[in-house]
């Protein structure tokens, strides 16, 4: 493979496209597919054929606004339809070239206003199982570029210049991480893509793997070239069967086209990727636990240092980045590090994909430049809290994050701003809560999560989360005293300061942030034996959350 061949593939794909007058793109992400969007695609294809319209019906990945699904996008008009059923095929096809079908308007309002697609640039436009469609949109240009024009050091330089930081939660500078692994001597090195999207309420990585898997493969290959690795693994949750299937096909396709394997693009560079399935353990999102899991062992973390960069998979130098981080790599190489660093804030560059869920009008996947405010996302893109209820808090960062109240809505999103507000970026889950949510029981929910997901290796996390969960339960039941609250606070401090890995170190965060902003709710449970939101057992309301 060389530049000409790559261009040829792209040209061929374009030629294929040009044969058609219209493109009907049907979302077949997990969410829409579960509403039988495959049957909708078949119905539209059949209808188009019977009408004799030159129309290409394509399967695509998630288009974003999941709540309006199943979604259909008609090109070149750019018309979006929502809540499409099989029976709508006839109307959709007959409307091609004319006025859109009014009743299928997804009513997305300002959903796409302010969104900026880097990671999701191909979403809705390509068939995730066809590598050529990816190539037609500029795919693998970046890989070819690094292999033919750049030294590994130059690649790392561009990544460093871009200011890209790890999208998995910690926000460690990606260029620095690559540089470290590149400098470690080792005959065998590995690249691992962390697709163990464990944060409940987050589905960015699932969407990317389902919709545009080649992008992740390309990103990994570029990383492998930069650090000198020949072998890669994608660690995906087994709970994401569609992502696994799409990724499997994508790897096969990439190998077929020569983007993976021996002597890639006629260079001496060889690299291949295997899939490893997670088996339902949140802690495996932690680097060292993930490595243990790939090695076929219990996913328990080990103390760092040594970091995986020095001693990772089977003791060899290993680079671990998450799905979204790798997905950012090809456009950075294509457009240059400076292009990427022109987006975002001073210390958080580029865009970030968020999974917008909870008590919000328009749920779904969004990608916005760093620095956008929470208010813009929640009230602009998301359309605010439905059913006339009042916004109470937004939870970011999953079980390691925190709940931010109304007064923080104008916070500009960046790694550092979220941390100083008592939460964190996490992998991108953004869950909106209204006044029917009790913040104590939300804290208890997260503590229960951490308790059941604790690997059990170190005692502060193993035993501390149980104790904190019991204290939170006591508070929810209206059986706690101020002394219990003091003990809870002390446990938060000790567990956070002494746990072995990130899970335990951040497990107190949901408690600490709710204590910081919603202390009055705790005190209402303790002093007045009352749940202000009417959720907990101690309140006269009958609704019970376990």
């Amino acid at each position, binding site marked *: 493979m060389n530049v000409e061949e790559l261009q040829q593939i792209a040209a061929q794909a374009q030629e294929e496209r040009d044969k058609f007058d219209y493109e009907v793109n049907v979302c077949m992400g997990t969410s829409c597919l579960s509403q039988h969007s495959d049957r909708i695609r078949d119905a539209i294809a059949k209808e188009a054929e019977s009408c004799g319209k030159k129309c290409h019906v394509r399967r695509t990945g998630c288009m974003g606004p999941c709540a309006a699904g199943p979604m259909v996008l008609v090109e070149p008009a750019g018309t979006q339809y929502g809540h499409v059923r099989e029976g709508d095929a006839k109307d959709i096809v007959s409307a091609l070239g004319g006025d859109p079908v009014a009743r299928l308007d997804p009513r997305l309002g300002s959903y796409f206003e302010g969104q900026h697609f880097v990671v999701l640039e191909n979403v809705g436009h390509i068939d995730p199982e066809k590598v050529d469609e990816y190539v037609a949109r500029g795919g693998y240009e970046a890989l070819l570029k690094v292999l033919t024009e750049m030294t590994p050091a130059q690649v790392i330089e561009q990544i460093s210049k871009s200011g890209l930081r790890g999208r998995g939660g910690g926000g460690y500078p990606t260029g620095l991480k690559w540089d470290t692994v590149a400098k470690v001597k080792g005959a065998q090195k590995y690249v691992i893509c962390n697709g163990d999207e464990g944060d409940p309420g987050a589905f960015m990585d699932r969407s990317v793997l389902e919709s545009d898997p080649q992008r992740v493969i390309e990103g990994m290959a570029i990383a492998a070239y930069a650090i000198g690795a020949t072998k890669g693994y994608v660690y995906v949750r087994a*709970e994401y069967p569609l992502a696994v299937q799409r990724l499997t096909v994508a790897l096969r396709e990439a190998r077929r086209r020569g983007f993976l394997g021996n002597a890639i693009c006629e260079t001496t560079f060889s690299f291949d990727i295997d899939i490893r399935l997670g088996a339902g353990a949140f802690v495996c999102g932690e680097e060292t636990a993930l490595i243990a899991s790939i090695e076929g*062992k219990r996913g328990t973390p080990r103390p760092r240092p040594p970091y995986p960069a020095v001693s990772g998979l*089977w003791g060899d130098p290993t680079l671990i980045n998450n799905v979204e981080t790798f997905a950012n790599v090809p456009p950075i190489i294509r457009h240059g590090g400076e292009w990427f660093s022109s987006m975002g804030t001073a210390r958080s560059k580029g865009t970030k994909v968020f999974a917008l869920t909870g008590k919000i009008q328009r749920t779904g996947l969004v990608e916005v430049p760093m620095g956008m405010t929470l208010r813009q996302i929640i009230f602009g893109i998301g359309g605010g809290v439905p059913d006339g209820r009042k916004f109470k808090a937004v939870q970011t960062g999953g079980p390691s994050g925190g709940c931010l109240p109304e007064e923080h809505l104008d916070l500009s999103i960046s790694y550092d701003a979220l941390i100083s507000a008592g939460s964190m970026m996490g992998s991108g889950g953004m869950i909106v*809560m209204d006044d029917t949510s009790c913040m104590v029981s939300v804290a208890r929910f997260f503590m229960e999560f951490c308790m059941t997901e604790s690997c059990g290796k170190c005692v502060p996390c193993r035993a501390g989360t149980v104790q904190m969960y019991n204290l939170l339960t006591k508070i929810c039941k209206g059986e706690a005293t101020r002394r219990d609250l003091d003990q809870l606070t002390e446990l938060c401090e000790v567990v956070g300061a002494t746990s072995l890995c990130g899970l335990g170190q951040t497990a107190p965060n949901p408690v600490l942030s709710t204590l910081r902003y919603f202390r009055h709710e705790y005190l209402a449970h303790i002093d007045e034996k009352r749940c202000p939101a009417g959720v907990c057992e101690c309140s006269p309301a009958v609704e019970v959350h376990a």
Partner: protein
Amino acid sequence: MPLYAERPPLPSEDKRWRIVNGTMRKHGYSRNALIETLHTVQSSFGYLDEPAIKFVVRSLRVPLSQAYGVVTFYHFFSLKPPGKHTCTVCTGTACYIKGAQKLVAEAEKRLHIRTGETTPDGEVSLATVRCVGDCGRAPVVLFDGELSAQMEAPRLAAQLERWTTQ
């Protein structure tokens, strides 16, 4: 019989053991293929019983205790056979905020079992999962692995009713 002298024969004529063996062969009977192999057993047989684990550990030469540690560490593996049908309620954050606990309570009430159990007649298993990633349309329930979103208690009850009265 010596513990790990040679690769053990397939436990039975059941063709599914060939699939399991295939996974191990693909990984060159490497120890680190343990989880991959267990995944194959779980997806082929629906659960992992003792003979299956012993077959795998003897083939891969993994210590028994290590294999059992792995099986019990990951939620995805089950030591008990599942029911004919499986109802899995997602208890991720978005689903929680949208009232997943009420769905769990409803299912437990209808089936007269607790989460993680199977009805005595072996018809329905009730499970929870930490996020299947369809948070945009929470709350979510999987019926026999098929995703049903924006679930409500009456719809859930109706589906369980269909299963139990078949």
